[in-house]
């Protein structure tokens, strides 16, 4: 059985005043409308949820019941994918597989929540353990006893070491923020649209040396919903196939990796062919994250990412378009996960729906997600129009 993405939607707000369920309902309704599919026809539910990002409480008990019950879905398959950032990409892949295997007919994939609760309490989804006294690793007694500002401090360690090993400069990282902002200026969904310069980035507040404010995502409220189905109905979306999929999970502490300047993207993207990729949507929690992915997927050799961003036009009009809608650095990061933002942008590009920032004739888009407090999870997917 052939599966296809028949509907999708995303909504993001700096702060959504209504309830999380209300926001979820609005987003899912829009996706179902695009797919011309009703909630009764959805028989697969795949979602992700992070502690502290649903209704402000530490956890949501039995979210499988809560989400299905609220949305009026009677699934015969439920899957909770909990590794944050790249989970949305995995959901789409699994939905395709489930439909092709005849297990289900239509899947709803949901990612998001509210980032504002934790943001207002100066916590993040990666420091939520200290805020709510829940565990983050099996080694918390020897790891979570230090003063940090994770995830910013952890990524700062990577940026610092990348600079020391390879001579990568603050200016080079800033170029990523500057060029992504250029893309955001033509994207209705972006919350940050005023032009910025390298000097602006380098004079923004130092948060965790060497990472500055304009290199770090802003957590927001929002959801993304994607509907994969064997039924096309009245959906105008073009058929898209998954040309490549890889996921990798590095389960040791980053201190035990060969070096912290690599991510599991090295493995999840193994074997991907970069020829004829029209756009790249690379997980952009921080500028350094994008730089690492540029190297790990093979656009540049390890250590040459800085030079690459200095000499390559990565805007949507450029030679190698990256984060064509400005990425989550400019759209905002809903519930501390950027996966929905980059997947939605890929689908907009592939359907010629990226108003104002369309890459001409975009037919193959590579999306790469990174997740976990420690960059331990990576998913690489290439979507191709048929």
């Amino acid at each position, binding site marked *: 059985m052939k599966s296809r993405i028949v509907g999708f939607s995303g909504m993001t707000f700096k702060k959504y005043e209504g309830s999380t369920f209300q926001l979820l309902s609005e987003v899912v309704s829009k996706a179902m409308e695009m797919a011309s599919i009703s909630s009764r026809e959805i028989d697969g539910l795949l979602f992700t949820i992070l502690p502290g990002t649903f209704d402000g409480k530490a956890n949501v008990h039995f979210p499988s019941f809560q989400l299905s019950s609220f949305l009026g879905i009677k699934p015969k398959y439920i899957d909770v994918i909990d590794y944050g950032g790249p989970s949305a990409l995995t959901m789409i892949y699994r939905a395709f597989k489930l439909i092709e295997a005849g297990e289900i007919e239509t899947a709803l994939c949901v990612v998001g929540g509210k980032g504002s609760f934790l943001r207002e309490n100066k916590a993040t989804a990666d420091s939520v353990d200290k805020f709510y006294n829940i565990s983050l690793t099996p080694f918390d*007694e*020897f790891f979570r006893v*230090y003063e940090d500002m994770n995830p910013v401090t952890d990524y700062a360690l990577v940026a*610092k070491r990348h600079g*020391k090993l390879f001579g990568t400069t603050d200016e080079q990282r800033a170029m990523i923020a500057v060029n992504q902002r250029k893309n955001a200026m033509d994207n209705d969904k972006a919350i940050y649209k005023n032009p910025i310069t390298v000097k602006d980035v380098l004079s923004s507040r130092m948060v*965790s040396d060497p*990472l500055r404010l304009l290199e770090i995502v802003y957590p927001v409220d929002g959801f993304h919903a994607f509907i994969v189905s064997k039924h096309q109905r009245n959906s105008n979306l073009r058929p898209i196939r998954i040309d490549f999929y890889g996921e990798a999970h590095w389960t040791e502490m980053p*201190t035990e990796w060969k070096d912290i300047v690599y991510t599991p993207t090295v493995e999840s993207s193994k074997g991907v062919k970069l020829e004829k990729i029209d756009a790249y949507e690379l997980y952009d929690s921080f500028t350094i994250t994008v730089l690492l992915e540029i190297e790990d997927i093979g656009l540049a050799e390890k250590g040459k990412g800085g030079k690459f961003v200095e000499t390559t036009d990565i805007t949507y009009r450029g030679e190698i378009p990256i984060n064509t809608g400005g990425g989550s650095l400019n759209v905002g990061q809903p519930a501390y996960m950027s996966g929905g933002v980059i997947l939605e942008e890929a689908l907009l590009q592939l359907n010629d729906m990226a108003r104002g920032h369309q890459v001409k004739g975009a037919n193959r888009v590579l999306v790469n997600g990174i997740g976990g407090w420690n960059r331990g999870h990576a998913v690489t997917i290439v979507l191709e129009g048929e």
Partner: protein
Amino acid sequence: MFDKIKEKYLSLMEKERLPYIKCKSCGHVFFYPRDFCPKCNSRDLEVKISEGKGKVFSFTKFQGKKGETIYGIVELDEGFRMYTNIFGDVDIGDEVVVTFINDSGRKIPVFKKK
């Protein structure tokens, strides 16, 4: 086994000793306690005491509760790495030594510039 290793870690730290684990089978060393060797899967492990000397693998400065704070990774001379707080003006590669601070009724290993 895991609980025993953890207990040993905690009691050594109370005596201001920095523990680590060495695999008796393949010689791999690691800090975060597990009851198997992450490299060769052997369960023949030994808790050892580090000399407490190492080098800064990476670090970052940020505004913490008491002003400028350094968070980093230190690579010990025995070959294992750990996350920690560091005191003093350091750069990557600088030599540091372990010292213990009291925190919430426990002794926590941190590092200072040599």
